[in-house]
């Protein structure tokens, strides 16, 4: 490495630090900053806790095996969790090269710097919070400090390699969403093999044992995996860099849909059309919608065909969750997408009120989807029609009433097409609180009423009545939201402007 490369590495490291420090999420949202610290602290706490608890748990569950053998056998789970966690913050090197494209430095060097820094990222050390206490409790007495260090070092190499594997998958996913099937197939395959042949467990056990015993072959294998994935990642990123630099993001429209049936609804119909296009033509809302739909179907299937959610609380929670999830996802970010073009909307009379109405009607219409999905649990006798109707109306009434309050308080613009995970995160404490209220208050109400009245139907009827009342009152509370939005408009508009990409 020459001096020039080291200087570049230092500069890029400094810029990455500043980029993280000056992220709009932290600058505009103190809660976001503390929430992330808290989240990191909780995560670290969990890992340390598991590090201390797992040895005794493994001893109890698998008395014939040493706990470190069990952990080594299941090392694939650690890599799987690590892979998912990396969606929260790991950047793709190719997208970071663009600002250097016209500077007198080689693109290849810039890319190498980013790849190296990804490998040296302190995030990779987070698993030490689990491995260190676990190793101290299980390895020390047999292998001493040397064994512990070998164990930690071996895992660290594999975790760094896992980071490059994540970058490869993310790059492919950016090219086409169907590449998401690659990590699913790999990790799913490993789990399936673990359940059937057990040979991933054996490989893990042997490999881990090799680290502990400082067997050169174990480390050579780990380093070979790391080198291979680094090389693959580098080749792929190099190919992508030029494409990224020349990228013009063009959306190909095969057919321009007009949704003519909406004409009959006048101005609200026009905004409904706008909402539908917002949801269908932009990456972030589209991905959110798909995710919500998958969650909804998944919960319905679990409720209908398994007995894991058979207790009353979970039954009602799933019923309300299924109806609310799509609405809550969209409405918790109410006006944040519109922040991209709010100045234009605000220069037209009462357009925000019409927009809010259109949002409400669209979300009510979307609630018909869970109505179909919930047929399975109804047929299976897990819920009855009244339960489903109560969940439907409490969502269109009370839950939406709660979530529409976000229209008054949201003031950060959300990028319509940047990736959902990580860098677009703009949540705030009020948003989180309202989401919790939306999901849990109706269930708490039902459970509370069930505790008071012996007849379980009373709670469902009360929920239904409250839901219908809030639904019918929607013109009143939507106007109230609009009036309060207009009172806060200057603060909100300044916030939207400041956070616009």
């Amino acid at each position, binding site marked *: 490495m020459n001096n020039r490369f080291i200087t570049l590495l230092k500069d890029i490291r400094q810029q990455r630090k500043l980029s993280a420090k000056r992220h709009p999420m932290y600058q505009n949202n103190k809660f976001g900053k503390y929430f992330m610290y808290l989240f990191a602290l909780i995560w670290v706490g969990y890992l340390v806790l598991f590090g201390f608890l797992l040895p005794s748990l493994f001893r109890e569950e698998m008395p014939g095996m040493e706990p470190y053998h069990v952990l080594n056998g299941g090392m694939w789970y650690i890599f799987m969790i690590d892979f998912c966690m990396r969606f929260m913050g790991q950047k793709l090197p190719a997208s970071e090269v663009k600002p250097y494209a016209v500077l007198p430095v080689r693109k290849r060097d810039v890319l190498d710097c980013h790849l190296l820094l990804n490998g040296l990222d302190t995030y990779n050390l987070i698993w030490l919070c689990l491995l260190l206490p676990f190793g101290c409790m299980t390895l020390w007495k047999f292998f001493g400090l040397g064994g512990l260090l070998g164990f930690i070092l071996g895992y660290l190499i594999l975790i760094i390699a896992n980071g490059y594997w994540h970058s490869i998958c993310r790059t492919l996913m950016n090219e086409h969403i169907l590449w998401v099937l690659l990590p699913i197939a790999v990790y799913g395959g490993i789990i399936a093999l673990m359940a059937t042949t057990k040979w991933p467990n054996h490989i893990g056990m042997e490999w881990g044992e090799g680290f502990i015993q400082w067997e050169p072959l174990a480390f050579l294998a780990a380093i070979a995996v790391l080198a291979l994935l680094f090389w693959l990642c580098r080749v792929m990123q190099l190919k992508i860099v030029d494409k990224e630099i020349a990228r*013009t*993001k*063009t*959306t190909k*429209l*095969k*057919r*321009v849909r007009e949704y003519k049936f909406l004409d009959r609804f006048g*101005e609200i119909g*026009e905004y409904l*059309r*706008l909402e539908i*296009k*917002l949801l269908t*033509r*932009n990456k972030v809302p589209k991905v959110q919608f798909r995710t919500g739909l998958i969650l909804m179907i998944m919960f319905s299937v679990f409720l209908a065909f398994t007995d894991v959610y058979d207790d009353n609380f979970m039954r009602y929670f799933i019923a309300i969750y299924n109806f609310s999830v799509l609405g809550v996802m969209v409405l918790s970010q109410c006006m944040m997408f519109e922040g*991209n*073009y*709010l*100045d*234009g909307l*605000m*220069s*037209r*009379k*009462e*357009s925000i009120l019409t927009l809010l109405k259109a949002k409400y009607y669209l979300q009510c219409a979307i609630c018909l989807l869970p109505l179909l999905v919930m047929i399975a649990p109804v047929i299976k006798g897990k819920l009855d029609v009244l339960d489903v109707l109560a969940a439907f109306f409490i969502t269109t009434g009370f839950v939406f009433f709660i979530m529409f309050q976000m229209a008054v308080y949201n003031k950060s613009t959300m990028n*319509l097409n940047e990736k959902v995970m990580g860098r677009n995160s703009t949540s705030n404490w009020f948003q989180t609180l309202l989401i919790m209220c939306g999901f849990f208050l109706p269930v708490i109400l039902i459970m509370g009423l069930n505790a008071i009245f012996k007849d379980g139907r009373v709670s469902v009827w009360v929920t239904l009545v409250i839901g219908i009342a809030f639904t019918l009152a929607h013109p009143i509370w939507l106007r109230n939201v609009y009036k309060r939005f207009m009172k806060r408009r*200057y603060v909100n*508009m*300044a916030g939207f*402007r400041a956070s*616009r990409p």
Partner: protein
Amino acid sequence: MIISINNLHKKFGNVIAANIDNYVINHGDMVGLVGNNGAGKTTLFRLILDLLKADEGNVTFSTQDGLFTDADVTSTEEWKHHTGAFIDESFLIDYLTPDEYFAFLGRMYGMKKEAVNERLEHFRPFFNGEILGEKKLIRDYSMGNKQKIGIVSAMLHSPELLILDEPFNFLDPSSQAIIKHLLATYNRETGATVLISSHNLDHTVEVCPRIALLEHGVILRDIANINGSAKDELDTYFDAPVQAAEAAEAAEAILEKNEDSENSEIPESSETTENKE
């Protein structure tokens, strides 16, 4: 539409963005706002359009037909039907195609589809065949074409007050010529009040009979521009820093020259000193 700016003040931290005691733009006026970067042009437009809260003072609108008189822009929304504005990209809904966007705006202003199409025909030369009928989202257009879409979106419903921030930006020379013609004709034929800002003095002088010179939020001069008479005054004002710099450079050069000649007059002594050293 008559715009009255009354004791309008706006500060961002310590920076004064607007500081206007009294300024009236009359019905049918076509005013060009000129000033250096940070003069407060866009801020003034945002204050006029109620997109920003003033620290003090207000902006009122009055229509000629008496529909509203001295209506404070912050307390009513009625005026929004009568104004059209394009400040920047944040006015565009970029996931729509231009046709969809114009149709959407048309309906917002109560225009029928035929009326929208008829109005768009008027702008066809300005679009240069690149905008209408394309299956392309606004976000995928070039900056110049986005500018065109924004300008036409503001003019679509023939507003009584038209506000355009830097309308000549990003446009090619032909489009600049067309938009100048369109704006002048629009003002003349409809009697609408037109307010534009620009860094291009030539275009502003060519098209605006009245020019306001803005610096640090203050309207320094309100210039009647008859047959381009404002050109010299504006050139003198904006050239002043250059002239001052040139004068300073010239003075410095004279000083250096004098010093050189003084030095050259005593070559022996300096040489003697060097030799001694």
